[in-house]
């Protein structure tokens, strides 16, 4: 677990602005360092199926290792048998004997082998699948809604005490309890997938699909859209963090509309930025207390997020301004229009204000 956190920090350092500005100084150097890092730490990245952090994912990894072992044995055996036929000494056989040998091979390898393997596989597989069903529980699990947009994530907490909480590109969930994710797509088909927690489910416009996932303990996970969804499919990342229950409740409380409104409006120094926001941004973006639009990502708690642009760059000082200036270069084709018509000072003030939105 700690290992993957280390990985995450490294990624964020690598995905920062500095990297973007002084890129490819020494490709080979980075590569060697990475290779060394890989071998030394054994870090498998925070999206690795092989590093499960929940029961569903753990079951699947278990199945995988068993299947890999079994498959390797079958492959090696078949190959060895085939190759051995080229080296074998000739044996004289009568046609009856030949038929018997042939039948043994065909029935043994062609029928018994696959049927036995399939049955073994299902014995493992079916109960695993059963456990992933969203069967009714005596204690109904918390519901979190995730909506895929081209190319960002809308996350809603309809069950939050005091009213629904909305955020974007970050998914905070309580650890140690099953969560039902209700997912859908706003435009095209996307897929919701937190590899370390379990399987994926498509986000289809017009339907609500459900998947139940559970994180063993507090940790940070990577997630990424898995269904090809257009130009920036590769840059549709989601930051997922499991926290203790009370921390989760507190996080939700901090994001109630009232709390967020005062956060957005109380600092007098940001008044020009707020005006610029209302002029240029409010028709698409929501900042609680100022606007309610939902075409683009919600920005009400932007400053507290770990990354920008659905994972394109890490959140750090000046990052929002940089993003506002160069977003079409950083993430070509994203749906936000270029801001060439807005002067740099305004963008900087907007950036500073948005960065201050930290509940």
């Amino acid at each position, binding site marked *: 677990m700690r290992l993957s956190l280390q990985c995450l920090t490294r990624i964020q350092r690598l995905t920062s602005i500095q990297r973007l500005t002084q890129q490819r100084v020494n490709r080979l150097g980075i590569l060697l360092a990475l290779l060394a890092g890989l071998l030394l730490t054994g870090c498998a990245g925070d999206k690795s199926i092989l590093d499960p952090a929940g029961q569903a994912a753990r079951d699947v990894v278990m199945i995988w290792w068993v299947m890999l072992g079994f498959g390797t044995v079958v492959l090696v055996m078949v190959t060895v048998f085939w190759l051995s036929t080229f080296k074998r000494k000739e044996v004289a056989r009568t046609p009856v004997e030949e038929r018997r040998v042939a039948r043994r091979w065909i029935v043994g390898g062609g029928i018994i082998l696959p049927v036995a393997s399939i049955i073994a596989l299902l014995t493992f597989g*079916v109960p695993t699948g059963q456990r992933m069903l969203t069967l009714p529980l005596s204690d109904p699990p918390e519901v979190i809604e995730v909506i895929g947009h081209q190319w960002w994530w809308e996350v809603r907490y309809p069950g939050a005490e005091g009213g629904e909480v909305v955020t974007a590109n970050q998914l905070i969930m309580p650890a140690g309890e099953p969560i039902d994710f209700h997912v859908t797509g706003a435009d095209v088909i996307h897929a919701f997938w937190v590899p370390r927690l379990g399987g994926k489910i498509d986000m289809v416009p017009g339907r609500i699909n459900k998947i139940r996932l559970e994180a063993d303990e507090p940790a940070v996970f990577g997630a990424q859209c898995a269904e090809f969804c257009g130009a920036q499919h590769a840059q549709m990342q989601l930051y997922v963090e499991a926290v203790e229950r009370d921390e989760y409740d507190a996080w939700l409380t901090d994001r109630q509309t009232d709390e967020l409104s005062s956060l957005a409006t109380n600092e007098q120094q940001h008044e020009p930025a707020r005006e610029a926001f209302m002029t240029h941004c409010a028709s698409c973006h929501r900042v609680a207390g100022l606007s309610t639009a939902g075409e683009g990502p919600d920005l009400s708690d932007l400053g507290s997020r770990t990354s920008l642009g659905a994972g394109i760059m890490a959140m750090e000082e000046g990052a929002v301004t940089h993003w506002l200036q160069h977003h079409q270069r950083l993430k070509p084709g994203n749906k936000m229009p270029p801001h060439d018509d807005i002067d740099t000072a305004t963008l900087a003030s907007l950036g500073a204000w948005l960065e201050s939105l930290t509940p």
Partner: protein
Amino acid sequence: MTIVMQRLHLTHPLHFVIGLTLWSAWFVTVYGGHAVACEVMPPDPEQGVFTLVNALLLMVSLAAVALLAALTVGCYRMSKHHAGRLSFNARVSAGLYLFSTFGVLFAAMPIIGIPPCL
């Protein structure tokens, strides 16, 4: 009619495809019927696997198994009555019917284990 029956004699290679066509028909019925049932009268998830939907699907499957098994036996017997081409046809048909029988049985197994509409 008699011509049709003669043509459809169990040694006719048309039986190569009848078994698996029945398998496909069964498959489409069960898959389609299941989808429609879940749309029209989804049972309460609390019921688990003991629902009308599962029962109906199971009955259709058992009927298909019975039919295919009968045809398997028929073709197998016929293969012993003939030699050469006709025996070959009946033998391969028997094998294909047998496979279809097990195909239905095997693909129907989840019906007894998985609640229908989740």
